[in-house]
């Protein structure tokens, strides 16, 4: 069953239309990726899911229509978002950043346990927990963004270009952890990426966007074999 499903989704900033009726779905427990170049509308797609931009069409989460609902309420449904630019609270400590991630969490259990859990995934954050978020390196801040989203105990994790500006080794490390979280905690993932090689290696289903439209979709393994994608996005 699809956990997240969009049909004929349009989005616009002011008068500028960015998404022109796209369809996509994230299966429960799956990892879906949306690929595309700069300006294809990938980030806007995630923003549309989070209610951060005006939309038309339909978005369903867990069968319920969620268009037009406030971001704060969508977070309470269990949608965790590691946003573009990483969204670090630069003047707060790493631990405070993580505690904020648990702010709207549903269900019981102690925050301390969840802190231990994410420190387990990202030991470097445990070493830096008293440090201000703004003093972390780019890779560490990306880890912090993912960890903060995990503190929500999300059902769906939205990742906005986690590879941007990071060294390949760091990217591999972060995505390895995303895969672990997906498998062990059954968190569904929607990953938006420019780096097609990385994203197709992780995802089970993929969409390719160009200027606000989905131009191709299918199982990730199939898209990896596709000649056009190979030439344009994988470079071989």
């Amino acid at each position, binding site marked *: 069953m699809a956990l997240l499903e969009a049909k004929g989704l349009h989005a616009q900033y002011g008068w500028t239309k960015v998404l022109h009726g796209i369809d996509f779905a994230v299966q429960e427990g799956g990892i879906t990726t949306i690929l595309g170049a700069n300006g294809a509308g990938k980030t806007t797609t995630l923003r549309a899911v989070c209610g951060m931009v005006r939309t038309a069409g339909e978005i369903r989460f867990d069968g319920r229509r969620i268009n037009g609902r406030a971001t704060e309420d969508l977070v309470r449904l269990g949608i965790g978002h590691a946003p573009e630019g990483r969204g670090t609270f*630069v003047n707060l400590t790493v631990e405070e950043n993580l505690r904020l991630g648990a702010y709207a969490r549903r269900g019981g259990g102690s925050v301390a346990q969840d802190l231990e859990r994410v420190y387990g995934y990202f030991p470097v954050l445990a070493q830096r927990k008293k440090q201000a978020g703004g003093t972390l390196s780019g890779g560490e801040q990306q880890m912090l963004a993912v960890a903060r989203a995990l503190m929500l105990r999300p059902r769906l994790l939205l990742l906005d270009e986690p590879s941007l500006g990071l060294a390949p080794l760091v990217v591999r490390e972060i995505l390895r952890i995303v895969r672990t979280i997906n498998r062990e905690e059954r968190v569904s993932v929607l990953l938006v990426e420019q780096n097609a090689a990385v994203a197709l290696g992780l995802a089970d289903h993929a969409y390719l966007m160009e200027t606000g439209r989905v131009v191709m979709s299918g199982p990730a393994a199939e898209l990896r074999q596709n000649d056009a994608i190979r030439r344009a996005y994988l470079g071989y």
Partner: protein
Amino acid sequence: MEVFFQQVVSGLATGGIYGSVALALVMIYQATDVVNYAQGEMAMFSTYIAWTLLDKGVPYWWAERIVIRPVENKPILTIVIVCIGLLVILNSMAGWIYSYIQKPFPSPFPPKPIMLGTVVFGAHDLGAIGVTLVVLAFLYAFFRFTTLGLAMRAAAQNPVSSRLCGIRVGWMLAIGWGLASMVGAVAGMMVAPIVFLDPNMMAGILIYAFASATLGGFTSPGGAVLGGLIVGVIENLVGTYVHFIGTELKLTVALALILVVLVFKPSGLFGRVAVHRV
């Protein structure tokens, strides 16, 4: 030497009051990123309400909802102008409702001064410093150890990211203004027994409070209170020992202090230097 100590003590006393107003300024700045020029008048108005209702200034959260919300994302100058507008409105409204005649305001502390050797401590002065320190400790604990306090700091710093954590940013800002106006009201009630209650009572004090907050650092609540004490003492000592200044030019000292701090240490003594990755 006796004169010196007496001046330091009474400087600390007025400084405590500057500190509490400065604390309210810093709080709003921390919680909402707005420098509230209307803080003094808000405190004054709350004090009037306290005077009539013997109640706290809680209703002030409306100021955020009605006046600040519409300009929240506008350039900083817009917000400054709105705050100054609020200052003028509150000042005139207080005059209109309560008239400009000075009213005595009772002190919650006994009138008997406390003697320590030859130095006189006013009970109200000591009480005012005590109250300021208690408020400071309360605020520190609130912002440092509670989830709501943390969410308020987050909302002021990074509203977009806060929303993604599920924080209702608008409410956090409203609560911030409400809290700050409560602190302002407490400050007002400490000031009123000294200067009498009248619509212009906070005008001078607000400038000292700005000097205190600037000296201590706009990002440091503790610094604001300490800054207040320092400003109070400097003001008194300069007034006593530098003859051409006397009592008439005391306020100038505060303004000069603001200038000096801004030129040589813009983040204040205890403030955090704002760093942005570019």
